[in-house]
């Protein structure tokens, strides 16, 4: 196998089409890795007794991509054995039960990729400028992550 193809890579994508777990996990597969860990964020159909019809996501796209790149850089510093990282986030309308985010990480052994995936999703929720709007039957609501960095962080 051409060794230059196995250089550690970050695969970051924000897109409005349906996300594919197969596609994202295949991106990070590597002959030197015995583990691929995957997180899938899906959309729930209820919030505080209200029925959620669908979600809508918007992003400050250029900054979201650069913040995700920073997360990847941090992951590689904390877990140097990590091989590939893929973060796909859906934008626009996301129907109930479909994936809004998929994160996949590969590493030689399982501990690092499991920890790195957890770190990625937690840090994404705190720092990446993406917003979710829940659409109910007769109203809507802009959500706020409790991890969110910003004015709330001082409270």
């Amino acid at each position, binding site marked *: 196998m051409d060794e230059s193809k196995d250089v550690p890579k970050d695969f970051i994508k924000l897109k409005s089409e349906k996300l594919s777990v197969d596609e994202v996990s295949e991106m990070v597969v590597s002959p030197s890795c015995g583990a691929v860990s995957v997180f899938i964020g899906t959309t729930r159909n209820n919030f505080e007794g209200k029925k959620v019809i669908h979600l809508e996501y918007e992003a*400050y796209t250029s900054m979201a991509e650069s913040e995700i790149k920073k997360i990847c850089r941090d992951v590689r510093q904390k877990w140097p054995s990590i091989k590939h990282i893929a973060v796909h986030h859906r934008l626009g309308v996301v129907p109930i039960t479909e994936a809004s985010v998929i994160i996949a990480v590969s590493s030689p052994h399982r501990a690092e990729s499991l920890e790195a995936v957890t770190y990625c999703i937690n840090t994404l929720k705190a720092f*990446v400028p993406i917003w979710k*709007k829940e659409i109910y039957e007769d109203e809507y609501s802009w959500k706020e992550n409790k991890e969110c*960095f*910003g*004015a709330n962080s001082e409270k």
Partner: protein
Amino acid sequence: QVSVLYFARSAELAGLRCETLRVPRQVTSLQLWEEIVRVHPRLAVIQDQVVFAVRQEYVLLGDQLLVLQPGDEVAIIPPISGG
């Protein structure tokens, strides 16, 4: 002159997603916010929840002095909810 970008609730309150604004070259982040609220008074209700992103770096509303160049991007960032 800087580009101001509005997202999520701030875009709904301001009624637009993007505009150019003439601002002083040096200004604190709070002064910049006050200037923006002068143009879009409905934004005042989210003052306690927003931060800025200036040249794609987060900046809290406060005394931090910003040195702005023409064409810089300033974004209003309401509480985020990605993932």
